[in-house]
Structures are given as C-alpha cells and as structure tokens.
C-alpha cells in the first residue's frame, strides 16, 4: 500500500514536469536544393546580441558538418530551437541561403518562447 502510494506520488510529480520552451522554425521558399542553393545559415539574436550561429551544407566538411538534404522541388525544412538554461524569451532568427558562397536568399522572423510549449515560427525565404 505504501509502495503504491509512493509510486502514485512519483507519477503525479513526474507528470508535472514540463518540456523546455521551444520554437519549431519552418523554412520554406522557391529554392531548389542544390540547384539554387547549397548552404543554409542561421543566426539567432537576442536584441543586438548574436547568441548562436549554425550552417547546413549540401556537401559537408569540417567547417560545415551538418548536411542540408537535397530538395529538388523546393526548400521545406524545420529546425527546433530550444531555450535551455539561457534567458532568451524573445529572439530574432535570421536565415540566409548561399550558392557557392554567394547570398541567394534571406528570411527572418521573431520567436516568443512560452514555458512548456513549442511555438511555430514560419520563415519564407525570399530572393
């Protein structure tokens, strides 16, 4: 009986745990990968402060280890941003598409994190 009560308490308390605040960034645009672009870059800002940067490349390398999947029909990807321990409730997301080092497209949006939920942040890449 005591064990049952303890397990119930565990389940109750365990159920109260919430996920971190997150944002699901949906990236779309009329860009064929790799015909129109071969590299996607993301910069996240908290006000004027750049807090993170990441690249995805069709051809991975040591400087760009993350792969950008081929999408001949057009760009349609998602990235999950998680507000972990940092205190960044409001961020700005800048995306850039390059083709052989030349900027070919851009997109931007802001995200307001909410505790325990995942907010959707659509970004349409434009030339």
């Amino acid at each position, binding site marked *: 009986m005591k064990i049952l009560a303890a397990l119930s308490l*565990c389940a109750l308390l*365990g159920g109260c745990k919430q996920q971190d605040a997150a944002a699901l960034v949906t990236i779309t645009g009329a860009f064929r990968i790799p015909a129109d672009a071969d590299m996607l870059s993301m910069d*996240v800002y908290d006000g004027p402060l750049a807090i993170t940067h990441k690249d995805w490349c069709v051809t991975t390398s040591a400087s760009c280890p993350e792969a950008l999947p081929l999408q001949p029909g057009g760009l349609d990807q998602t990235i999950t941003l998680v507000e972990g321990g940092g205190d960044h409730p409001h961020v700005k997301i800048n995306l850039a598409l390059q083709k052989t080092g030349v900027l070919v497209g851009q997109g931007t949006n802001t995200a307001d994190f909410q505790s325990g939920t995942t907010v959707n942040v659509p970004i349409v890449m434009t030339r």
Partner: protein
Amino acid sequence: MTLLLALLLAQAPTAQPPQPAPQPAAQPPAPKSAAEPDRLANARSLIAAGKYADALVDLQAVSQMYGNTPREQAEIGALRASALLALPETPEHKQDAADALVGMYHVDPEGTALAHATDAAKQLAQQIRSSRTLVLTDRIVTARSGRPLRIRARLAGAHVGEPQLSLNYSAQHQNEEPEYVSIPMDRVAAADTYEAWLRPGVGGVPGGGEHLLVYYIEALGPDGSVLDSNGTAKDPIRLTLSDTLPEAAGIAALDEGGRPAHPVIPPPPTPWYKRWGIIGPVVGVLVVGAVVGIVVAQPQPQPKNGTLGRLDLP
C-alpha cells in the same frame, strides 16, 4: 573411654539440634579453615569401619562448625542417625536418630544424603517419611533484595485434618534477638503445598539493600500443637537478601513469577537500531529520498526535433 564419650554425646541432641550451626552473633562458632582435617569424611570412614562412637565425636564437632552447606548438614544428619542406630539399642538412641533424620529432611527434602547412611538409618527414614508430618522447603541461601519473595513449603508424611502452616520471619539486625513476624501460608493448587509472599517494605521486610532474613516454618495441627517446624526461632533458616552478590542476580526462585528449577533470564534489551524511534525516521527519510530520487530521475519531456535537427540556445 571413647565409648563413654560417645554415649554422653548421644544424649546431648535431645536438647540441641544436630545439624544447623548456631547463630554467629550469639554464639560464634569456629569457621572452617583449610588446614582443618575433613572430619565429615573421617566420620564417614569411621562408620564404614564400624567405629560408630568415634564417628559421633567427629560428627558433633563438624555440626558445630560455622558455614556448613545444606548438603553437609544433611549428610551429618544421615551419618549421625546411622551411628546412633548402630550403637546398643535404647529409646534415646532411636529418638535421637529420628530427630537427626528429620533434620536431614528439613535441609534435604529428597533425602539424597541417605546414600551415605546405613540400612537401618534408611529404614527409619522411610518410616518417618510415612508416619509423621514433615514441613519441607527448598532452602535458598541468597535472593535478590527489593523484590517480592515467595516462600514455599510442602507437607510430607502422615497428618490428620488440615494443618495450618505459618511463616515466621525477621529481618535480623546485628546483635539483636530476632523478633519474628508470623503470617499464615496459603495453600496453592499443588498438593500439600503452601506459600507466602514477603513484599519489600511491608511487615518489616527490608525494602532493599543487603540484609539477613531469618525465618522458620511451622505446621500446626487442628489443636494448635506443633506438628513440625522447619527451622526454629533459635535456629532459623538464614536467607541473605542482596542486590550485589552474583548468586542473587541469577536466582529467581523466590521472586514473583519465578520457579525454583528454572531461573528467569530476562530478555535482552532491544538494540537501539531496532527501536521504532530510530527505524521510523530512517525509513521515512529513505522513502522520501527514494521518491525524490525517482521524481528527479524522471526524463523531462522534449520537444520534437525538426528535419534539420535541434539547436539549443546557450
């Protein structure tokens, strides 16, 4: 000459009980010493050799020594009866032998000392056991002080009607004649068995500490006559009340609830680590700790990763 001395000694016991030593305060007897010859063994040998008069001399000397154990007192009685019955038969010799055997039964209710006696003494002992009233009690020399004492006695032999047993006791003080308190003994379930309780601080019973308690048990007939007395006012049973003597710690025979043959050994105290006052909080802390640990160990729900993966903000 020896025979004359023996005959003189054989007359004496009618006025003086044969085995128990007199009280040291009133008449200090000589204590035994290591250098002293074993006159009891010598008397035994003399009886075996048929030298009964010489044996009586040794037995008389031994009986006056201080510190004879009940077993020695019983053997003295048995040997004395053996020697007296082997002398030329006279009514006095037979009466003295009977008295010696009664005294033997008083300190040795089972008569084990008769193993050293002659056949004539054994025969007389059997006759006494079946023909006269005997007050028998297990004499214990030491008991715990400050606890209720149960004195038990039983009647053996022939008796007419319902005798009344009385316990006469006194907490003896040095150099003072004991003043006895007499209380009736109650009959218990066992056949012909009686008991009386002495409670600390009641009726002159010491409340604690080191004391000498003297007592004797009388059986009175319906007409008030004394049928038998185990111990007497002049020569009582001596019981040391002590809370320090090692023997006292192990004796529960006279304590409330105790039985003579089975000393009560109190159960060991519960170890501190088995007490609920300790176990309860410890188990409580362990349970709470386990619950907190399980809660902390629960995985936090994670948001679903995108097709390009997940990026944790610093």
